[in-house]
């Protein structure tokens, strides 16, 4: 099983405890509150992911040969969702990130947040994460 798959299953199990939408969202918001955020130097337009309503910043990097992400948002729910994506993707093998179908959002009833018409910036953030990982994976392939 892939690293990402394992993490997704863990999250699905975690969310299965919640029957009420409010509990689910409170959990998401709490995850956002625990997010370390990004380095201040990255809080610029260059690292801002375009979203209509809430803003998202993504700070990609390489640590010990793996792709790591830090991220932040100005809205609490979006920040929680951002934390969720960082938790699933950060530190996983680059090729896995690039290919991840991310079906867990559907399994925890949050798929609507990743629909392309959503104006929260999350779709663009995931796209950026995958692009970054794909670029790194192809670089790795070239240089062995």
């Amino acid at each position, binding site marked *: 099983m892939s690293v990402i798959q394992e993490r997704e299953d863990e999250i699905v199990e975690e969310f299965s405890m919640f029957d009420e939408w409010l509990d689910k969202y409170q959990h998401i918001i709490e995850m956002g509150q625990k997010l370390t955020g990004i380095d201040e130097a990255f809080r610029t337009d260059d690292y801002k992911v375009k979203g209509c309503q809430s803003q998202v910043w993504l700070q990609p990097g390489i640590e010990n040969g793996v792709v790591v992400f830090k991220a932040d948002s100005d809205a*609490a729910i979006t920040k929680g969702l951002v934390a969720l994506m960082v938790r699933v993707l950060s530190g996983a093998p680059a090729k896995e990130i690039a290919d991840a179908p991310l079906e867990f959002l559907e399994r925890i009833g949050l798929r609507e947040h990743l629909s392309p018409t959503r104006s929260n910036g999350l779709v663009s953030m995931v796209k950026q994460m995958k692009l970054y990982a794909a670029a790194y994976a192809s670089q790795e392939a070239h240089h062995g």
Partner: protein
Amino acid sequence: MPVFDAGEIASIRSRFPILSRTVHGKPLVYLDNAATSQMPESVIQAVSEFDRTRHANVHRGVHKLSQEATDVHEGSRDRLAKFLNARRREEIVLTKGATESINLVAHAWGRRNLRSGDVVLVSELEHHANIVPWQIVGSENGSIVVPIPALDDGSLDQDAFQKLLDGAKGPVKLLAVQHVSNALGTIHPVKEMVAAARSRGIATLVDGAQSVPHMPVDVQDLDCDFLAFSGHKMHGPTGTGVLYGRYEVLERLPPWMGGGDMIDKVSFSGTTFHEVPWRFEAGTPNFTGAAGFAAALDFLEEIGMDRIHAREAELVAFAHRELSGIPGLRILGTHPDKAGVVSFVMEGIHHYDAGMFLDQMGIAVRTGHHCAQPAMERYGVTGTIRASFAIFTTESEIEALAAGVRRVQKVLGG
């Protein structure tokens, strides 16, 4: 004395099929009418009946269906002319919405009449649809878009307006101003503003997208050269809209889009154009929508625009009372003249989070910048939560909003 008794409101509500649905298992509380209002059964029926029995292209066919379709389509023009008290039916150009209407003026009138350094005077609260078309034309001919500043209460600075009219930023060729702010709800004194512009020979366009659905608007009384609005904000189908244009002004304008139905004679040595208003209606129009639009006007007139305006004023006052008691909540736009919009921000709570939570409670509001980013900037916010009303809105729905807002605060700790 309330404008409507509870029984009347209940009966009006029963005419809107969508109001009986639930959202996330809760009854729908629809407070996003300034974006798109809902359609009563009569409008849905008019559209469906047209599609079942008369669906054919208009103006061209000699066959029965085409003639009937043309009667319905042109009939909606007559209904609109009467609704607005236009002098003649030819003053009604059918478009797909207020945005297209304003773009039509920008391209047909603006390209012909604006020169480098000329000023198009808008307001700081304008919807993007009444800013960007002028910027596009300005990028071609050097004309500039200048905003009339807004005051803290959501009204426009009339002293600054007078100075701008007198040329403080250059010669004003067009006043293009909203009647009602979509972001805040303020009703601007456009009749007086239009008169001030006209006395100086300045052309005038009124964006009526948020006024025509909510109050009586009489184009002869307003005396503007152009008025733009959309059908889907007044209980009609989407893809319908109007550009009213004073006949003498329209008559002198070149077409904007070319195509079928707008021509007189086409040859490769040159083309002559159809008369007004068809000159501005290239291609197959939204005749199905026109059938629904006419039914929407019937619905509005049956209730009466005066009563609709009075009822919505009641709702706005009620919402102000309900919401202003909530600590940490600030209403933007406190001027007493307001149409059915209440816009607010909550301390420490992002509008997106509030909107998401309200949605989970079945409450549909608009959050964000409402396509009026300069207005948001003016009030130092990135967005607001906007509740907007219609004739079917009830006090208990506004109470549900207030309760929802308190719950959001409790959860998000604002």
